[in-house]
């Protein structure tokens, strides 16, 4: 992206043996083609799946774990709960460190940080010897209650680093100094397991870029939506696990800010899954209840256990198995199902004629007349309408005993209801009313389904940004540096004086700042700290995170506890003003605001399109629907039905809804509240 916001795009194939090779050569080619001096680049922002893939494909390094005596199996026993209620043979994911490489040291702290058993040097020596025999490439350390008193864990860490100076070491006090031993151990182990992989990848990327005379600093997208330096990412690789999906939400967040919208639901529908997230009060929403490798399952919000716990803040994204490639079938009881199985890009939907024979959501959208039957992607992919019809007839219409259009419309409706559950799980499940939000839809298939989903949820406005198919990638260019830190501090806020709390924040911030400077943060980048705190009613299992910026020597109760009561009431509908509240964890995030240009794509000129006959359910039936391009739209409202064909996406405006183009080039659909569809 140039300083004026204009950007150029180049897609290259991944070089699977070493991803950094493809990146460096692709970048060099692009710079040459555009006659850009490599030395003039100011920053490279990188989103990578290297960390995630290392876990999903079991390609992390040989890792060892050192724990408190008696607790070797915390990592394996997890929290006992299983996600498949009706399975007799449920097998949990294998722990990332096998039992043979989990070693114990004799020591024990109590919950107040006092010592029950001093660190035993003989047992530490024995653990070091065992580590020497095991020859791990990474070592994780997690001792009980180290979040309240780091002494034992520091001594163990230092002894390990002294003995094995070339081995990657992660201690829980450096990764996640928070209460709950399984979650802390698991997060630390993830960090160690992927550490050397991410480390060598980013090192090799740096070397390759330097060789090509590209000296700009590299920033890495984090799961929380901020970017961090590559050096910081090498030390805290567990923070970049969900860097891919985060980018779309970051892009939506920035666009929402430019549009002056505080409350937005982001909706990203691709070929296999659909994802929803929330921007509320101008902020992205984060969660610390994430599991790596849990796959797509809404039930994971209720029953954990499918993946490896990762308790670092991740943008809260709900994902369901519904996308353009989702496969359609009718089950043994005669009920229509869509997904979660997907034909993906290969063999793909039946209409692609790439070998896929199952009917998919895309086939239904072709049959309904929504997608251009002749070709998509600007004419580069030809679709076979007959193949879509045959597949739908066989997979849905015949078994259901309905005609083809009804069956196709049913697929559209069932896919929508599945995706609605993703949106509900970030809104109504958390006490938020979707009607208070606008829906921002992107991804290849999002703009086709957004208006109908919005209508079902009572959402009044849908926004389709420019270049919706590559919107997520553009989000990378808009991310700002952001570094989050936390520490468990269990206290009764009523008894805590404000200065103690402020001192605790300041201590966390100054320790964190020196670490950031070590990791290459330059002093000339002025950032600001933003404070939050996790609280709960005494005895509850889950905390809520509330704003803590307003504490200034005054009354903590008024600021912190009242914020908590309010948040609890907003989320769960109830408060208990007379009951004791516990402070559990303090958090501080360092953000650097950047003056960034706004990405802007060149606008294609209007094109000539033929109207298509599209089916909008039994009430409207088949309607001859005008087809336009984005450039045909103006600030003046135009009534649906209307189809907007673009290179990378198709937007559907249903009957009765109004559509216009805003002055930034976004398509804005205002949804009619009239329920035109009995099956929505």
């Amino acid at each position: 992206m140039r300083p004026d916001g204009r950007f150029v795009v180049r897609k290259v194939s991944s070089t699977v043996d070493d991803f950094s090779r493809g990146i460096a050569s692709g970048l060099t080619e692009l710079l040459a083609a555009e006659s850009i001096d490599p030395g003039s680049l100011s920053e490279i922002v990188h989103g990578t799946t290297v960390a995630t893939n290392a876990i999903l494909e079991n390609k992390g390094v040989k890792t060892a774990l050192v724990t408190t005596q008696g607790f070797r199996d915390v990592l394996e026993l997890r929290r006992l709960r299983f996600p498949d209620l009706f399975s007799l043979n449920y097998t949990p994911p294998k722990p990332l460190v096998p039992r043979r490489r989990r070693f114990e040291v004799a020591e024990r702290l109590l919950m107040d940080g006092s010592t029950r058993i001093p660190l035993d040097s003989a047992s530490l020596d024995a653990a070091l010897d065992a580590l020497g025999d095991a020859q791990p490439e990474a070592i994780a350390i997690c001792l009980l209650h180290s979040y309240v008193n780091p002494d034992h864990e520091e001594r163990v860490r230092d002894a390990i680093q002294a003995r094995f100076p070339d081995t990657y070491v992660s201690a829980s006090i450096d990764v996640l100094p928070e209460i709950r031993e399984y979650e802390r151990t698991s997060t630390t182990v993830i960090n160690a397991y992927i550490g050397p992989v991410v480390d060598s990848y980013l090192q090799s990327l740096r070397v390759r870029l330097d060789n090509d005379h590209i000296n700009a600093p590299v920033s890495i997208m984090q799961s929380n939506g901020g970017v961090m330096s590559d050096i910081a990412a090498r030390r805290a690789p567990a923070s970049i696990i969900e860097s891919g999906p985060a980018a779309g939400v970051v892009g939506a967040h920035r666009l929402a800010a430019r549009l002056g919208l505080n409350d937005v639901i982001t909706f990203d529908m691709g070929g296999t899954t659909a994802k929803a997230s929330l921007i509320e009060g101008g902020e992205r929403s984060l969660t610390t209840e994430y599991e790596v490798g849990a796959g797509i399952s809404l039930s994971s919000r209720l029953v954990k256990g499918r993946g490896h716990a990762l308790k670092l803040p991740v943008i809260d994204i709900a994902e369901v198995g519904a996308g353009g490639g989702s496969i359609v079938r009718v089950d043994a009881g005669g009920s229509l199902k869509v997904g979660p199985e997907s034909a993906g890009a290969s063999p793909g939907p039946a209409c692609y004629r790439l070998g896929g024979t199952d009917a998919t959501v895309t086939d239904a959208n072709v049959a309904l007349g929504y997608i251009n039957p002749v070709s998509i992607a600007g004419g580069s992919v030809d679709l076979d309408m007959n193949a879509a019809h045959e597949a739908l007839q066989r997979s849905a219409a015949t078994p259901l005993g309905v005609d083809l259009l009804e069956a196709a419309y049913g697929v559209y409706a069932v896919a929508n209801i599945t995706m609605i559950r993703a949106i509900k799980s970030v809104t109504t499940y958390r006490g938020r009313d979707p009607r208070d939000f606008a829906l921002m839809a992107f991804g290849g298939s999002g703009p086709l389904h957004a208006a109908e989903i919005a209508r079902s949820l009572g959402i009044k406005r849908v926004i389709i940004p420019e270049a919706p198919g590559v919107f997520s990638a553009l989000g990378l260019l808009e991310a700002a540096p952001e570094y989050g830190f936390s520490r468990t501090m269990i206290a009764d806020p009523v008894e805590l004086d404000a200065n103690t709390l402020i001192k605790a924040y300041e201590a966390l911030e100054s320790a964190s700042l020196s670490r950031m400077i070590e990791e290459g943060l330059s002093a000339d980048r002025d950032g600001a700290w933003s404070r939050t705190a996790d609280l709960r009613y005494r005895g509850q299992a889950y905390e809520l995170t509330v704003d803590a910026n307003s504490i200034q020597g005054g009354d903590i109760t008024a600021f912190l506890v009242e914020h908590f009561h309010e948040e609890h009431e907003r989320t769960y509908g109830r408060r208990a003003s007379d009951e004791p509240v516990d402070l559990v964890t303090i958090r501080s995030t360092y953000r650097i605001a950047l003056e960034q240009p706004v990405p802007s794509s060149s606008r294609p000129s209007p094109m000539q399109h033929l109207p298509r006959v599209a089916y909008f359910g039994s009430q409207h039936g088949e309607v001859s629907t005008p087809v336009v391009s984005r450039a045909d739209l103006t600030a003046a409202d135009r009534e649906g039905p209307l189809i907007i064909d673009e290179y990378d996406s198709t937007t559907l405006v249903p009957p009765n809804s109004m559509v216009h183009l805003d002055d930034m080039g976004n398509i804005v659909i205002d949804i009619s509240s009239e329920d035109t569809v009995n099956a929505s």
Partner: protein
Amino acid sequence: MTSDRLDPITFEVVKNGLDSMVDEMAITVMRTAYSGVVKDALDYSTAFCAADGQVIAQGLTIMLHLGSFPSAIQSVLTKFDGRINPGDVFILNDPYTSGGIHLPDVYIIKPVFSGAALQGFVGVVAHQADIGGLVPGSNSTESIEIYQEGLRIPTSKLYDAGKPSEAVFDLIATNVRLPIQVRGDMRSQLAACEIGERALLELIGRYSAEELNRHYEALLDYSELRARQEISALPDGKYEFEDFIDADNIKEGPVRLAVSLEIRGDEIFVDMAGSSPQVPAGINSPLPFTKAAIYGAIRLIMDPDIPNAAGYHRPIHITVPSASVVNPVHPAPVAARGITGFRTMDAVLGALAQAIPDRVPADGEGGNTLISLGGRRSDGTPYALVDFFAGARGGGSGSDGSEGVSHPAGNTASSPVEILEVENPVVIDEYALITDSGGAGKFRGAQSYVKQVTNIGEQATLQLRSDKRKFPPYGLQGGSTGSPSLNILNPGPNERLLPTLAQVELGKNEVIRHEMAGGGGWGNPLDRDPAAVLEDVIDGRVSVKAARDEYGVVLAERSSEVNEVATAKLRTELARQRGS
């Protein structure tokens, strides 16, 4: 689809809407509840029932509550016939007058109205941390009558036309040891009911009440049809199985659970004749709970996609003798009936294993061991630690039993050790797998684990509900039984073995150690891949001795590889000795 004229697409959309509603209710409870039993053990359930009381949808939390709503709703319909009004909320827990399943499980049920017309009920049943009675946590196995087990709440109005009943709230707060926690959990149940009500009214606004009712019928028919299809595919025949509860604290023990299961066409008949008569100890299982365990066991061999609508019960016919441990009559105590529910489920699965040996794994740890420790902190404030030990499954036809995965009947979670220590005056000394505890087999049972707790506070009352010591988890198809469970007081030279069902005072610095039972093995241990045995030895799950004695696997020096020649020889010899 068996119902005519219903649009199959709207049906799927409505079904999703109902599932989403009960899930949302369940998430609300989980995130707002106070007591560990609810928040960590997920010992609660949410349901939506049609106006006639039939369960239409249920949140996926705990198996043993599936099928336990109908009798509770029936008691509301019967007792308050003609007096159910908008703004009412009902509460109950008593098994003998009101369809409850034991006193700590409190039902809160809200009728939903659209205008003046009753549209159905939303309800939450949640295990309260205490409901009074002999011991903190109200899980005593020592009671001989239900009167000793705590506060009995007959079906009552907690809210009458929107007005809270001060009397009922006060009675509860006065009779429980932990009024703040109980009130907090009741509040979370009420919050979930309100969320359910709101979601149902939205559905009614979108479709008509009349159309929704037709979908409820269709959903019941659909779940019935799917269940019948699954049962049809099972081999016809009559299969019998018996299992026992140790019940070593009473002279009537051990307690026998007998199951005769007949598969005939698309129906299943389960008869528990021959089960022990009811006992003067709190392990009697009220009929709704017994039925839930039987439905649950059969549900486990069906496609998980079948909706949790009561229709799937229709092809399952259950006969249970009256005044038995699985269908007690007043005033038999029932506080610890969970154990009987687990065992009923294990026994039904044991019978099913004969019909479909490849689909049913060997027995697991027997459901959770429940430990409650209650007393006062040094500052006089009360506490009640309630924790579950669970998670050693039996081996199956293609895989070893999973370690650290709860019994399918009760999807409980452990509480974090660090949280337990912050909230209670205890130290957890050890929490680790036990070598050689899993039953040997071609696919071995899971290793169990030990949890050892030291009381660092003042004297407190300890209640332990465990099982499977005299009758450890059964193996199948030639697999061995798992190791028995143990409760050891003050391990060391002066240690004392406590019964499986035990209640003792635990003084300051006294220690209780529970070793859970190991999972049963599946298939002949001599058929186990020697490489798998080697891996287990390297990981310390199986000892070198057990590798040799149980599996016939001889390892080379330092356990680095299998001595194949010696192994083949030993296996031949063992096979001859064992006559296999």
